[in-house]
């Protein structure tokens, strides 16, 4: 019984902070869409999709990989690369300090986590963006880790999957960030030439430099339901053009309708769908 108390007490205290956190530690969490209070073990069993409103609640990179891959035999790739302040960039805060607080908030060294593991026994390399790390923005390290992950896939002739969620290229590394768009696109071209599948899974939200590079270049592009994906953010379009945006603009359903993605896949079907797709693509390759 004491154990039960220990568990439930912090969850009330943490009520506010758990709203921000994507990996809830308490027993109760409120849905970021419908605000219903949800029982975490149940929510986790539902892969953090709200049972009341079907909202796909934001997941941390590591949690996503844990839920996606078979539990055994995962190996992280290029775990130890840390960001570099190339430009000695300073806005209202120093970039260095922003990195430090992002590392603290996310418990990650950078905004991309890459792992080799198995999907229903099928060996795969999977990358996932960490949105809590400076909005999942892409700087030199994200580009480098993506490349090293794909190089690993190329070497071992494995398919590559990337779960993208990102505000875009990271301002604080300016042109170096911009160049990561070209760098990641170039290694994707190598995957394609090698006949290895690359599946891009779009997670809410993706904008700018990540949308206009690695996220759009999958052999197959998939999105979670209702994810916002586009080049320019809705607020900027509204302000620049002084227009009101149509309902559902830039949502997954909009992308499907306009031919930008192949399918929308519910989180509960992600493992089985990707496994099915990869098996079909790979059976003919060898």
């Amino acid at each position, binding site marked *: 019984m004491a154990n039960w108390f220990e568990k439930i007490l912090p969850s009330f205290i943490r009520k506010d902070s758990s709203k921000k956190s994507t990996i809830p530690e308490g027993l109760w969490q409120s849905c970021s869409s419908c605000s219903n209070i949800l029982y975490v073990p149940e929510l986790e069993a539902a892969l953090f999709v709200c049972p009341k409103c079907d909202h796909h609640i934001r997941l941390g990179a590591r949690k996503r990989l844990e839920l996606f891959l078979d539990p055994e035999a995962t190996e992280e790739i290029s775990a130890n*690369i840390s960001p570099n302040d190339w*430009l000695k960039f300073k*806005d*209202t805060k120093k970039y260095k300090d922003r990195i430090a607080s992002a590392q603290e908030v996310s418990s990650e060294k950078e905004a991309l986590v890459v792992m080799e593991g198995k999907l229903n026994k099928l060996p795969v390399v999977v990358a996932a963006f960490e949105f809590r790390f400076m909005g999942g923005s892409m700087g030199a390290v994200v580009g480098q880790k993506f490349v090293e992950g794909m190089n690993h896939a190329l070497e071992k002739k494995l398919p590559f999957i990337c779960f993208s969620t990102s505000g875009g290229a990271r301002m604080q590394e*300016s042109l170096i960030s*911009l*160049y990561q768009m070209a760098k990641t696109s170039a*290694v994707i071209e190598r995957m394609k030439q090698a006949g290895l599948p690359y599946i891009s899974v779009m997670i809410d939200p993706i904008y700018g430099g990540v949308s*206009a590079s690695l996220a759009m270049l999958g052999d197959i592009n998939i999105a979670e339901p209702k994810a916002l994906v586009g080049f320019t953010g809705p607020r900027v*379009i509204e302000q620049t053009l002084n227009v009101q945006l149509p309902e559902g603009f830039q949502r997954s359903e909009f992308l499907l309708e306009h031919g930008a993605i192949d399918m929308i896949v519910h989180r509960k079907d992600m493992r089985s769908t990707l496994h099915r797709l990869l098996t079909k693509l790979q059976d003919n390759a060898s």
Partner: protein
Amino acid sequence: MLQNYLDFEEPIAVLEKKIEELQSSELLSPEEISEEILKLNESAIKLTEKIYSNLSAWQSVQVARHPQRPHFLDYVEKVCDDFDELHGDRHYGDDRAVIGGLASIGDHKVMLIGHEKGRSTEEKIEHNFGMSQPEGYRKACRLMQIAERFKLPVVTLVDTPGAYPGIDSEERGQSEAIAYNLQIMSSLKTPILVNVVGEGGSGGALALAVGDHITMMQYATYSVASPEACASIVWRDSTKSPDAAEAMKLNAENILKLNLIDEVIKEPLGGSHRNHDQAALILKNSIIKNLKDLKSFETTDLIERRYTRLMGYGSL
């Protein structure tokens, strides 16, 4: 051409106005006038040299955006011996913010592609201020693939505030259009020479800027986002644009120091907007020389070299 002065050029404007006044003066003898003008001209040159040798990042932005700065079509006229424009993306339309075609430059036959901003109000509207929709990038992609098939080098002139932020651009796949160009350019089997001649703004610039040799004109800029966008994203205050320009180190000299481009092309005294003929000649000579160098590579070596360069950007 009536000269437009930027605020930091005010002292030059004062001197040049004096020279003009003297030229029409009736109080002095012709000898006195020419002697005085000679002196003033000398000081004007010295002053211009001084001001332009030490531009801040924000001042570079202003020069890169100068209304009289030569644009793509000015260069076409002055750099190419001939130019046959090729229109359309074959899917939807012909985006006038990106222009391309077959050109002769010196002894080289090339596929020349670039952003055009337009100068008069009408032209600006026609060219959408150099902000392309997906069709512009897809046209560029089509032309680059023609260049590959017919073994023509690709030469690009980059000058854009960025890709167009519009509802229809999003509907027609702005992100995909840019991404696809990056992918194609990384392995295009023909030399690609990139020249950032004005504003290198964001993904819209990069979509024409993956290549084997990248130059920047001395007062051109190149950055992940426009200073205004960066300021509103990072500072949450678009009036901080000059700070954002400084922080992004977006001028040619700084970018060369970071090893992100290969060469800075020196501009005429006081910037290309003061002398289109000279600017075009300098660019032409640079293109001719760089193409000669790039043509000396075997294609497979060239692709490997390009890939290695790309992988080196920001590798730790």
